């Protein structure tokens, strides 16, 4: 008791900074602690060295990074709490992009969905909104993703299969019929033809009487990762980057609430990249967009706050959490110290996340519900701003309504039953998670340097660097699964011979027929002269190197189709040729 009172007294008296002697004592105590910990750790190593180890794993993360049995304060002693970890909503944002995180607002439960025609998907959206989803996310079919009209002969068999078919403003009006675009935010996974679909959406909002400045949502618009991984490109990298910068420039003034890009690691990871490759390639792509904007003469603080990210959430719980945390710190550091951004909003990395489709197994598909739940947990512990949870049957087909409902309920259970969102960044200070966060940052910096040596991201794409690295990692993972050094339940272990059939969603050819009919009627109905005039003006703007948003909006309002607009640009830009290798 006496000692305690003495301490309190000294604190009361000592209103200024601690004395040199206090600091010296504190330092000595720390020094002793480290020495003792090192000694005890050496002892622990000695006693455990011969302990039997499980043979069913090689104790690496799913990315192949070694994980030690034990982490201690020695692993994080180089961390400077204020500089490296800090507080949520503050530089370097390791603990989260917002000060109060899920205490103020839970993540957006945004389910990616789209199939068949605009009318059918519109019904699914109304179903999702009625069941508590809080934002929409449009999945387009392959023809739309590639910028072709549904009736193009190249699209045979693909219309409406992997997403919804949207060939013109008329389809977009149907897609959001009865869904107010000033109240529901819309995310669109669209890249090669992002500018066209963005204009369709803006024009559809205009038709609803919603001004551009009230439209909220996101376009993926991340062309660099298309060349690297997802492959829905149209034009070569240089004109594609020019178009993206046009969108930044125009939107900063005219649609300031819209997220003009979602810089995506998701597809890079799904194509086979490791966690650190996903992290580093994606952030480097982000820096490339920033450099393009700056080169255009834009103020970085004008457009950087509208940049957003999109991560994959894979199976390795702690590696994923560390990835989210490291991404925020790396982005903040580069934006402030390298690109000279002054506003905290430019330093702050906001992200969407999706559970990893590639981890879903076709074997015993009900197990996927559990995988998705753990991945969702990782995303929330990582501090995501919005989340898509995959449906259990997506390894077989597009999801049924029932499977989608379970995926949504998974998020609601996470949000309301587990207690996980009650405190901010609960794993901060974990020796393991902090050390993994540091390690991911260190390795990402190494990859940035490697890409710089290649001449940057575009040079890396042209030489096939990214594609080769991703394929190599995909192959490593496959080899591990086949060698059974990495166990996947139901695939290379715990298999069952007799699996019950699961009801799946089937999309027939009626969407293609309906779309062909709609397009024919549209071409009949619209003012052909006005379309031709608008498309001519668009090509002229391309040749004059002007911002393409205003003439594109005019063409869209005249009901020029997606394929027609694609062609108007392709005349000048040409198309991308893939470097083929495996």
């Amino acid at each position: 008791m006496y000692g305690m009172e003495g301490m309190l007294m000294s604190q009361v008296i000592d209103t200024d900074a601690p004395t040199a002697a206090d600091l010296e004592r504190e330092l000595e105590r720390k020094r002793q602690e480290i020495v003792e910990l090192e000694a005890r750790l050496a002892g622990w190593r000695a006693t455990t060295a011969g302990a039997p180890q499980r043979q069913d794993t090689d104790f690496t993360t799913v990315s192949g990074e070694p994980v030690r049995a034990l982490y201690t304060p020695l692993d994080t002693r180089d961390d400077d709490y204020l500089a490296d970890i800090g507080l949520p909503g503050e530089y370097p944002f390791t603990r989260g992009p917002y000060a109060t995180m899920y205490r103020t607002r839970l993540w957006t439960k945004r389910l990616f969905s789209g199939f068949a025609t605009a009318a059918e998907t519109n019904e699914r959206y109304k179903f999702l909104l009625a069941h508590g989803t809080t934002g929409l996310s449009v999945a387009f079919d392959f023809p739309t993703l590639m910028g072709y009209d549904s009736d193009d002969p190249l699209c045979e068999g693909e219309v409406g299969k992997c997403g919804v078919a949207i060939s013109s403003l008329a389809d977009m009006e149907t897609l959001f019929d009865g869904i107010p675009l000033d109240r529901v935010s819309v995310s669109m996974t669209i890249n090669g033809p992002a500018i066209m679909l963005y204009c369709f959406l803006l024009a559809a909002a205009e038709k609803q009487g919603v001004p551009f400045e009230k439209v909220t949502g996101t376009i993926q618009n991340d062309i660099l990762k298309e060349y690297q991984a997802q492959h829905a490109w149209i034009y070569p990298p240089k004109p594609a980057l020019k178009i993206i910068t046009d969108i930044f420039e125009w939107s900063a003034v005219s649609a300031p609430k819209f997220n003009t890009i979602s810089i995506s690691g998701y597809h890079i990871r799904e194509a086979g990249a490791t966690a650190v490759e996903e992290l580093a390639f994606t952030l480097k792509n982000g820096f490339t967009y920033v450099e393009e904007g700056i080169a255009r003469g834009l103020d970085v603080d004008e457009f950087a706050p509208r940049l957003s990210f999109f991560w994959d959430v894979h199976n390795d719980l702690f590696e994923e959490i560390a990835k989210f945390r490291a991404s925020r710190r790396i982005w903040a550091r580069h934006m402030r110290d390298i690109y000279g951004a002054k506003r905290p909003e430019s330093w702050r990395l906001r992200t969407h996340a999706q559970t990893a489709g590639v981890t879903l197994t076709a074997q015993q598909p009900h197990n996927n519900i559990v995988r998705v739940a753990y991945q969702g947990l990782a995303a929330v512990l990582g501090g995501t701003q919005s989340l898509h949870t995959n449906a259990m049957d997506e390894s077989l087909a597009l999801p049924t309504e029932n499977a989608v409902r379970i995926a949504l309920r998974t998020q609601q259970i996470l949000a309301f039953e587990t207690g996980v969102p009650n405190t901010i960044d609960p794993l901060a200070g974990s020796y393991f998670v902090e050390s993994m966060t540091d390690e991911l940052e260190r390795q990402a910096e190494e990859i940035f340097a490697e890409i710089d040596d290649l001449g940057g991201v575009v040079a890396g794409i042209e030489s096939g660097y990214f594609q080769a690295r991703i394929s190599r990692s995909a192959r490593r993972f496959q080899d591990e699964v086949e060698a059974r050094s990495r166990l996947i339940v139901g695939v290379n272990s715990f298999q069952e011979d007799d699996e019950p059939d699961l009801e799946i969603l089937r999309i027939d050819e009626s969407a293609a027929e309906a779309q062909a009919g709609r397009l024919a009627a549209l071409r009949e109905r619209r003012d052909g002269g006005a379309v031709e005039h608008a498309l001519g003006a668009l090509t002229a703007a391309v040749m004059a190197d002007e911002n393409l948003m205003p003439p594109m909006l005019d063409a869209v309002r005249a009901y020029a189709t997606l394929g027609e607009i694609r062609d108007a640009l392709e005349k000048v830009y040409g198309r991308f040729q893939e470097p083929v290798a495996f």
Partner: protein
Amino acid sequence: MAERKIRVLVAKPGLDGHDRGAKVIAASLRDAGMEVIYTGLHQTPEKIATTALQEDVDVVALSILSGAHMTLFPRVLELLRENGMDDVLVTGGGIIPQEDMDALQELGVGRLFGPGTVTGDAAAYIRDWFEENRMDEDG
């Protein structure tokens, strides 16, 4: 007897950009000693049939994750037959429901492989087919 190498065309028909599986399979068939040609993405069925003819392949392996398999497999099969290549094995994989796999096999498509396939199984299937169907003619 010097055994000639099995020639395989790995192809991505249609607009589908998912090439992880195609590349993993191409690399593993190559490692299994086969001669592998990979088309790259976004190939039309016509282009695939022409390449198959030009490269004189034994096997065409299509990777389709876009749901368009019921259109693309029969189309490639038909074009190969038109080119006089009815003795070529058309196999492949992707996100293909079992009943569609069955229907495609009825049409003359070979075995199709879904998610979770061991690449060695695909290589063994192709080798077995080759030994049964091609060894005689190659003497």
